[in-house]
């Protein structure tokens, strides 16, 4: 009975997140348009003079841009918790007879759903433009499920611990851009100078991008498929645990 109630509560929170997402059209549109700009302008622009490992640059960065879409979508979603708090909507949830872990899981699944919907659209566009195949897109989607659990949890940790939206720019400068640039999304990570190379394995997105590139372009992986999967799994578990802890500590 109690377990059933937990599932309802988690479902209720998930449902709210998904409904809100669909009603904020601007968010959906910008979540799709930004990655397309990267692919169509940056990818084509740099691609006109650069090839990587014999692969057309646009095709090379497509997996990276999918990873970026997961990263930005997930972190922005997590930062949204601040709005929830400002809106006082969160009070309604926190005063309900529901453990914080269920609140966290509901929000995590809600955020992952939002992100995965954006990814599905992005992958469909990728297939339409000939950047990848249908089969690769489906496998990529599966990778993104795991990756979004991981990064949404990270976003929620940040959101739960941030006091006000003013810290937003700091998160951009110190979390989002470094994670994006040091993930191998835009360039291969194998030949980097040592001081940068040490940072790559600490970044969960590196494993996601590595896996995505593997399923889309085939051939070599930087870390190996098993390492990628295990690392992502491990990061997800650690982030989820830290996220639940942060939600339990969270004050109004």
């Amino acid at each position, binding site marked *: 009975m109690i377990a*059933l*109630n937990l599932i309802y509560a988690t479902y209720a*929170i998930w449902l709210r997140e998904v*409904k809100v997402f669909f009603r904020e059209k601007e968010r959906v549109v910008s979540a799709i348009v930004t990655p397309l700009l990267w692919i169509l302008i940056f990818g084509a622009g740099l691609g006109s003079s650069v090839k990587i490992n014999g692969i057309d640059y646009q095709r090379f960065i497509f997996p990276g841009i999918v990873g970026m879409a997961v990263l930005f979508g997930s972190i922005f979603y997590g930062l949204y918790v601040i709005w929830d708090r400002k809106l006082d909507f969160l*009070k309604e949830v*926190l*005063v*309900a*007879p529901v453990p914080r872990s269920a609140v966290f899981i509901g929000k995590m699944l809600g955020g992952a759903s939002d992100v995965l919907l954006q990814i599905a659209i992005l992958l469909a566009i990728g297939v339409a433009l000939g950047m990848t195949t249908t089969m690769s897109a489906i496998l990529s989607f599966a990778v993104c499920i795991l990756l979004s659990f991981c990064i949404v949890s990270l976003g929620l940790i940040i959101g739960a611990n941030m006091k006000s939206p003013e810290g937003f720019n700091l998160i951009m400068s110190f979390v989002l851009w470094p994670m994006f640039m040091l993930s191998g999304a835009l360039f291969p990570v194998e030949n980097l100078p040592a001081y940068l190379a040490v940072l790559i394995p600490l970044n969960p997105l590196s494993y996601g991008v590595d896996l995505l590139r593997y399923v889309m372009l085939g051939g070599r992986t930087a870390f190996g498929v098993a390492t990628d999967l295990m690392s992502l799994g491990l990061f997800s578990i650690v982030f989820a645990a830290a996220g639940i802890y942060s939600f339990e500590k969270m004050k109004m």
Partner: protein
Amino acid sequence: MSAIEIVKLKKYFGKIAAVNGISLKIEEGEIFAILGPNGAGKTTTIFMLCGLLQPDEGTATVAGFDVTREPFKVRQKIGVVFQSPSVDDLLTGRENLEMHAMLYGMPLDQIGKRIDTMLRLVGLEERQHSQVREYSGGMRRRLEIARGLLHHPKVLFLDEPTIGLDPQTRQHIWNYIRRLSEKEKVTIVFTTHYLEEAERFADRVAIIDKGKIIAVGQPKRLIESLGGDTAFFKTAQPEKVASKMKKMNGILNVKVIGDQIKATVKNPQKQLPIIFRRFRSIKSVALQPATLNDLFMKYTGKQIREEEGEGGYHERIMRSQRE
């Protein structure tokens, strides 16, 4: 059994005691007001009773459960209407209620019916499928009240339920609250800094200031305990009249202020004619009926200010709306 029992409750923020040793019993079915100026500790008290803040000292039980040891049981038994709007703008009125029902683990086959009933009771049936961002301040409040009562709580907490609403809307909200409290047989605890709301709508009131209770009782009794209404007499010989007045029964706190005499007059309907007959030099009198504010003045030496320090409900809605 009391609906709420608070014993020596304390909460510190840093070194400041926001709630400084409050003890209180609230009986089942009562409409109970916590009256005090901004920053008196009203919201902090409510938050502790809802389990949203941990008390630093003392204990509190709500609906028979200890707020620190059994917070989930307490939460199941209470409904809360927060000071600032906590309904989701982008959901419809009905969706907000559906989510609440699921969070409180209501049996799925009863949810639809119960929501219909509550929407009807607060007059939002026709707007139930509109997103809340299209609602007025009063409608949001009504939706929150319906939501607070949806899961059949034993106690409903209302933190400044009419803050920032215009007087007519405030009156409406109170009509709804009173009607619902009768229908749902629920104990109601509300905080307010509006004197007349505590006087008119509460069975009993606790007046608090700086985290301490300064008086508890029925509003009427508390006002009576002041000994009468305040009268201002105008006369050419204030000193002379005042010294004689001081000796009369039923007249208290006689004071000369300029060319006026200020005094507390018990039962003024009977006493004023007698005073007029006795002191022919009195030209006019202004009578101020006693209010809880006078009681507050008596104990603290200051007024309960009615302006809103923290911004009204509408401002909060404006501020809180998503960009």
